[in-house]
C-alpha cells in the first residue's frame, strides 16, 4: 500500500493511495509528488480545501469511478481542470454551475482528526501551505 504524508500548518496526516479505485489517476498523482503549494478553502464545495495541480501526466487522465460527494478525509482530483480537493466534513464537488464529478485518489487514515481540524480552521484563518510527499511504497 502506498502512503502519502500530508502536512498543513505543522500537522502531518497520512493518506492511503486508492490505487484500486483509480489506477491511472493514483499513479499519475503519485508520480507528481512531492507537491508544495497554497491550500485555499473552497467556495462552492462545502467543507473542503483545494489546491492546484501542475499539468503533467495527470492532466491526460480521464475521470475514474467519478463521485460528487467527498466523505470527510477524502482527497479527490479533477485531472483535466488541475484541481484537487481535500475534505474535512460534508462536501460535494461543485462549481457555479452545480454538482460536478471528480476522482478519489487518496483517503486520510493516520492522524486524521488533527489534520481535518486544521483544514476546518481555514474557514476562519484563510490560506495555508500544504505539502504532500511519498511516505512509503
Amino acid at each position, binding site marked *: 500500500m502506498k502512503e502519502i504524508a500530508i502536512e498543513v500548518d505543522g500537522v502531518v496526516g497520512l493518506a492511503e493511495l486508492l490505487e484500486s*479505485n483509480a489506477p491511472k489517476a493514483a499513479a499519475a498523482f503519485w508520480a507528481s509528488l512531492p507537491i508544495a503549494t497554497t491550500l485555499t478553502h473552497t467556495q462552492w464545495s462545502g467543507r473542503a480545501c483545494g489546491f492546484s495541480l501542475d499539468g503533467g501526466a495527470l492532466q491526460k487522465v480521464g475521470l475514474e*469511478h*467519478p*463521485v*460528487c*460527494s467527498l*466523505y*470527510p478525509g477524502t482527497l479527490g482530483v479533477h485531472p483535466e481542470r488541475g484541481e484537487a480537493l481535500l475534505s474535512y*466534513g*460534508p462536501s*460535494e464537488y461543485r462549481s457555479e454551475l452545480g*454538482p460536478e464529478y471528480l476522482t*478519489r485518489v487518496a483517503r486520510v487514515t493516520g492522524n486524521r482528526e488533527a489534520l481535518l481540524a486544521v483544514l476546518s480552521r481555514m474557514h476562519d484563518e484563510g490560506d495555508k501551505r500544504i505539502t504532500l510527499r511519498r511516505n512509503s511504497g
Partner: protein
Amino acid sequence: MPSLELEVDGVTARFALRDDLAPQTVRALVASLPVETTLRHCRWSGDACFAEIARGPILEISALESGVTSIYPGTLVLRPANAIAPTAEILIAYGDAEYRWPTSRMYVTPVGEVQGDPSALFKVLAKTSSAGQTTVRLAALKEAVA
C-alpha cells in the same frame, strides 16, 4: 468502532460502523438488528443493492447525518423513513453508485464501510442484477452491542 456482519447468499462481510459520521443512525441501526430482509438491485442508483428495514428503533430516525449522494463501493448507507417511504432503506454499493429517485439525486447517511477483501461480496451483489432478489441478513457484532 462498532461493527456489523452482513450475509448474502452464503457470503459474509464485516462492516465497520461510522459512528463518527452518523452517531444517532448507527445507534438506532444496531438497536434494530438482527434483520433478515429482501435484497434487490437498484433501478436508479447504479451499481448498488437496497433492502428495507420495516421495524425497530431505526424507524424513529428521520434526519440525515453527514448526508452524501455518492455511495462509494463497499459503503453501507441508510435512507431514513419518511412520509412517502415509511420504512428505512439501506443500500450497499459494489461499483459506481449515486442515490437517486426517479426525479432527482437524493441524500443518504453513510453508516458503514466493508472491511477486508470485498470481492466475494461485490460478486453476489452484482449477481442480483441478473438473478433477481435474494435475502440479506444483518447482525450486530458483539462489540457493537456492548
